[in-house]
């Protein structure tokens, strides 16, 4: 696109961009805060509630191990979910926006 003289502030105010932006911020920061929160819970839990982490759930596998493993599951889940949402919503909105600008 002729990068040239886009009127950036006009684009920034266009309803399509505002929608894209709002959706992204809520989604991205929301999931980021969720995953970081879980991680710090793991660290704090290991430090302050070792008794809880030592409770065995299945055989000798305890809460602590499962919680640590859950960090990976959460991360994988976010990666999959984000990929889907971005491919479906964000990329579509972005494409529409770019079309409109042209």
């Amino acid at each position, binding site marked *: 696109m002729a990068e040239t003289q886009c009127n950036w502030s006009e684009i920034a105010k266009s309803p399509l961009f505002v929608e894209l932006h709002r959706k992204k911020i809520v989604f991205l920061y929301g999931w980021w805060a969720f995953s970081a929160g879980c991680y710090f819970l793991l660290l704090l839990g*290991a430090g302050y509630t070792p008794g809880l982490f030592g409770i065995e759930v299945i055989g000798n596998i305890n809460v602590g191990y499962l919680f640590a493993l859950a960090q990976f599951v959460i991360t994988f889940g976010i990666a999959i979910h984000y990929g889907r949402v971005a491919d479906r919503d964000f990329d579509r909105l972005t494409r529409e926006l*770019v079309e409109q600008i042209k």
Partner: protein
Amino acid sequence: MKNSVTAFLLALSLGGFAHAAEPAKAPSVQQAPSAVTASAQQSTPPAAAMVVPAGAAKSAAPAKVKTNKAITLSMFALIILSTLGVVVWAAKKTQTAADYYTAGGGISGLQNGWAITGDVVSAASFLGMSGLISLYGIDGFMYSTGPILGFVTILLLMAEPLRNAGKYTMGDILCFRASAKPVRAAAAISTVAVSTFYLLAQMVGAGKLMQLLLDIPYKAAVIGVGTLLIVYVVFGGMKATTWVQIIKAALLLTAAVLLSLLVAIKSGMNPLRFFADVVNNAAIQDHVRMGVLKHPLPEAGLDYGKRFLQPGLFLKNPLDQVSLGLAWVLGAAGLPHIMMRFFTVPNAREARKSIRIAVFLMGAFFILTTFLGFGAAIHITPQKIAAMDKGGNMATLLLAQVMGGGEGSIGGDLFLAFVCAVAFATILAVVSGLVLACSAAIAHDIYVNIIKDGKANQREQVVTARVTSLVVGALAIWMGIAAEKENIVALVALAFAVAASGNFPVIILSLFWRKFNTAGIVSGIVVGTIAAIGLVLVSPNMTYPKKIAADARKIVDTLEKKQAAGEALAEKDQKALEKARTDYAKNKDGKSIMGLDAPLFPLKNPGIVSIPLGFLAAIIGCLAFRDRRAEDMFDEIYVRQNTGIGIANAIDH
């Protein structure tokens, strides 16, 4: 504008693990987020992982891993030859500055995902994390969750905007709406600082590891690794570095999967039985009781096997853990070599894909450390692992030998040689990425854009980039040799801390805050970097001679008391007494590098203080010197980073 990427990976690379090699201490591992290992204990953040066989290096005649030289050397030769083949191929295709720094943006998301994995998972992760698990149980596994979290930050907040707003370096992104020269200078300095600390930790770890595996002198090992890395980077640029990282990641995952399978088969492919094997293992129980908890008499009601699966054997200070956790989560996103990887893909969509792939690959690897670490504990025993190396860095190697059929068997020799070669490839891949990021900051930000005002033709830019890489590589060798005795833990802690405190705040504010400007960038980088370095300098990571002297004094007193009581000392105790006396005499009047008797800052990881300081300085600096133009340009960068409009021309701005 260009951009840079940062890399967090380091962390992943995490690993760093270094351990501190002070005699009197327990192994400290380090942790680097990046690398994987990090320091766990108290760690240092991320990063780099290094493996430092401290124990081995120190004690006079430690047990050694016996490799079959012929097989090991042929494996190394195979890796060297195949990667050099890649370099020759890549060198032909590297004509322009974009080719050199970003492989012309021609790397696919899939390839980049593998390369990021190769960049992040360092030897520290590969050897250090499983070592930690084998010695300290679940705490080691907690440790391996850190690196992956940094990638959530990168995936959600950084990868796409950076891809859309950047070109080659971090300076490119930051100077989009700020005045170029001061910002580039600040960005280049912090990039060089982060990369140097990380690189140094890797070089020292590499030297020690190769020394141990091949039985060659430390210097020869560092020079060997350094020479290869120079060849890769100078001739092959980003393309060769990328492929070296891809090859390494593939080898690494192959080794981890194979080893895990063999371990799982021994426990009947049943996870419950696997964990029961850990809990019921007499050697592990004994190790937890005597080696870790130091209970001379068993405590009633305490199941030492189960204790191995409970937290608290290694990670003792929760506040330090949270501080390290912050460095993991935010530092990876501030690592220049990781950042740079986003610029190698053609668009934001591929950048996103590459991080998603990297997350899965790294996650799989870190989950497998469960099998490597606990498997080593079951089949080798923690006692033997600790005897080879206090930090447990030899655990994976020993496990390979045993799983292959044992010492001296063909299978054992082959498998051990394979895993050694993988560790070697790992080191090469990680240092190559670091040197490239460091040279990009010097050649592109400082030389081309500051000294030459951006007026350099393609040929000149490529030549400058190559010469800079050569110089940086040569310096890495020189510093690696000089730093043989340095405390790697502290270096990795520094790299992550600076990345998280100096780089992360200004990048995120540049991308998302309208008012952000030149003054904010410069003050954020300067204050964050200085705060992180300063706190590490006065932290317990450094060596405090008075503390060593006090420990030595204790030994002297105990043994002298024994002597005074008329007991004859065993030869071992005699030696210990002499050594303690010398240590005491040598250290009693010493001071740390900063002239301190004891640490001023109680945590090994400065993040919890230095990261907020970095943000605060960036915000205050920016509000103190408002800049209308920067505010007006926010719409432009914001639209661009979200849409990718004008991506190809972004740099001309």
